[in-house]
């Protein structure tokens, strides 16, 4: 059985990529399972999707712990522990990374002995990143070596047909270019032996001890969420208080903030906790004297980088 995992960020088309590959396998006569892994996700958050393909019906389910091929559409995910890009990677695992850096650099950096391939980043144009899924899938199909150009093309037409001719053409071009690019490495992905019941690693089961509810109740006694979870990273818009116009009523914005991310100082002025403000802009809408403004997060960060105040 082939086990393939796609890693990317919400919005980069990993679900679609996994479906194109799944359909291509299916057209090739394989039994297939493909699935995205959703959580309470949003655009930009790490997500993954997976594909299984075999000649016989597939009984295995759920996440792929040990993959034959790992595809990384966004190389900034590699060091993110929560993304689990390297989970279960061993020397037989082939890794395909969309990255400007060379395979050698990645091999050294990650200390892995298996094969690593990179897809050269073609463009700085973020609009083009929409097609990264197709590019990854095209390259993956060739690395697997069991999917023809025709099956790949038909899979793209089936999965993207609803989006119109132009989208299909663009994705076909991206996928087939990447497919041809990997020609020299066709079929370098290998499958694993079936796990034997004769000598398996016994699970290290533990007895869960009783623990006092003061420890074992799932409550976090902080506003919104654990302070460790920097939900401020989600923000695309930043609310900024103009203290010149703030009337110091303090309770309106801090009460309406659905995340409890507005504290009130001893001077009675509201103070936004940008580590945890998700940028919903409810405060901007509620502030009676209109003293909170919305600024694009990108602009605010650029200002900060310049040493100015956002």
């Amino acid at each position, binding site marked *: 059985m082939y086990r393939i995992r796609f890693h990317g960020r919400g919005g980069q088309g990993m679900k679609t990529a996994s479906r194109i590959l799944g359909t291509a396998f299916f057209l090739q006569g394989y*039994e297939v399972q493909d*699935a995205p892994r959703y959580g309470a996700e949003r655009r930009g958050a790490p997500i993954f999707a997976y594909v299984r393909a075999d000649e016989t019906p597939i009984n295995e*389910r759920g996440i792929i712990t040990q993959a034959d091929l790992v595809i990384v559409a966004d190389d900034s995910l590699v060091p993110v522990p929560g993304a689990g890009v390297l989970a279960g990677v061993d020397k037989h695992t082939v890794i395909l990374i969309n990255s400007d850096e060379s395979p050698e650099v990645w091999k050294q950096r990650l200390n892995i002995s298996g094969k690593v391939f990179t897809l050269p980043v073609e463009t700085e144009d973020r609009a083009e990143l929409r097609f990264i899924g197709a590019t990854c899938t095209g390259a993956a199909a060739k690395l697997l070596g069991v999917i023809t150009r025709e099956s790949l093309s038909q899979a793209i037409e089936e999965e993207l047909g609803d989006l119109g001719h132009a989208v299909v053409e663009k994705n076909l071009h991206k996928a087939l270019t990447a497919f041809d690019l990997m020609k020299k490495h066709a079929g370098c992905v290998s499958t694993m032996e079936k796990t034997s019941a004769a000598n*398996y690693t016994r699970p290290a089961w533990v007895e869960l001890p009783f623990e006092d509810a003061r420890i074992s109740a799932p409550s976090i006694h902080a506003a919104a969420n654990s*302070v460790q979870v920097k939900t401020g990273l989600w923000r695309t818009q930043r609310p900024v208080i103009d203290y010149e116009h703030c009337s110091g009523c303090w309770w309106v914005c801090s009460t309406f903030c659905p995340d409890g991310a507005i504290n009130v100082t001893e001077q009675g002025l509201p103070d936004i906790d940008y580590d945890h403000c998700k940028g919903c802009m409810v405060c901007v809408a509620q502030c009676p004297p209109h003293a909170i403004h919305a600024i694009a997060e990108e602009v605010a960060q650029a200002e900060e980088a310049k040493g100015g105040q956002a």
Partner: protein
Amino acid sequence: MKRKLLTGNGAAAWGARLAATDYIPAFPITPQTEIIEALGNWIDTDEMDARMVTLESEHSMITSAGAAAATGVRVFSATSSQGLLYGMEMLYTVAGWRAPFVLVNVSRGLSSPITLEPDHNDILAARDSGFLQIHCSTCQEVLDSTLMAFRLGEDPRVRLPVIVNLDGFYLSFTREPVEIPDETAARQFVGDYDPENIRFRASSPVSQAVAVLGGSPYSYFRYESHLAAQNGLAVYDEIATEFAERFGRSYTAIESYRTDDAELVFVMMGSFATKAREAVDRLRENGQAVGLLRPRLLRPFPAQHFQQLLAGKKGVAVIDQNISMGMGGVLHSELASALYGQPESPRILLSFIGGLGGRDISLEEFFEISAVTQRAVEEGQVPPPRLLYTESELREVRKLQAVAKVERDELGEKK
């Protein structure tokens, strides 16, 4: 008949479509929403001739489903987890109306703490409601069971609503090859719905299940529902036989996999049971006589089928993807009550709890369950129930607790 890749949600929607559903009350909830989205699209594009109404809650949605069913039309709806529980009052109520319809539940663990991933505590909370329950383990089975569910519920010997259950994520969002039955063949199989004396009309009001005091008529009505549910066993067997003849796929009340000559038997329900199948194959290759029983029907409970299938077996390991607080695995308890006192029942019946909130169950864990069961058979002693939970998982929890402690201390300082 065409074979294509469908998610479990897509398969459920196809089932509702092929059964020529008339009315679909809807309310969105993860991981079910894709079902009503698919149906909504087909209604929009005139591929399906049905009326869909979005309600303001699952409580209203199930009321609406029951009320529509009481007018004698074919009704389909879908929900999940918290939604099913929010509609729970009406779930019991509409079942008592004896007006059949089909509800798909996409299993998801219950709060608290909240999760999106599957286990069976949501569907088991509806165990005693009067709804019959069919549990699925593949996307194909979701489609086929939805068709069979209409036949089962609408049968005059039953006339009860039916829930078709599929696991969130592992089926709901997972695509697998599914054969979509030909529309004509599906229609012929499901047949026209004959609502008999179910004729509720807005213009001619009737009282649906009036107040009964004193307990005597109440007992009568409740027990009649129970008898109708029990009739569901024989009716289901008939329907499954006919389905197999027409479509070539067999769905017995209990899936029995390599159990004929098995000494040890795994028992579990839902999609993770396919993992158990895989483990059975591996154990067989290693010369171990292990099989798998997977109840498709949970209500009515196929007690006699279990008694026959497990007669003479040496050991049974029930793997429950649910937990009844203060008791343990629900399927384990149900099976124990079905086997108790039967002369040929296996003496060794073990309980394992695993897969809560979608927690994976590895192949190695199935091997170990088999080994533990074998040891229990040899020693003649049943070990206490076991939660499938490893040292490394506990270590991760300890890390989170350490973070929580630091935060509590910091916050304490502030105050």
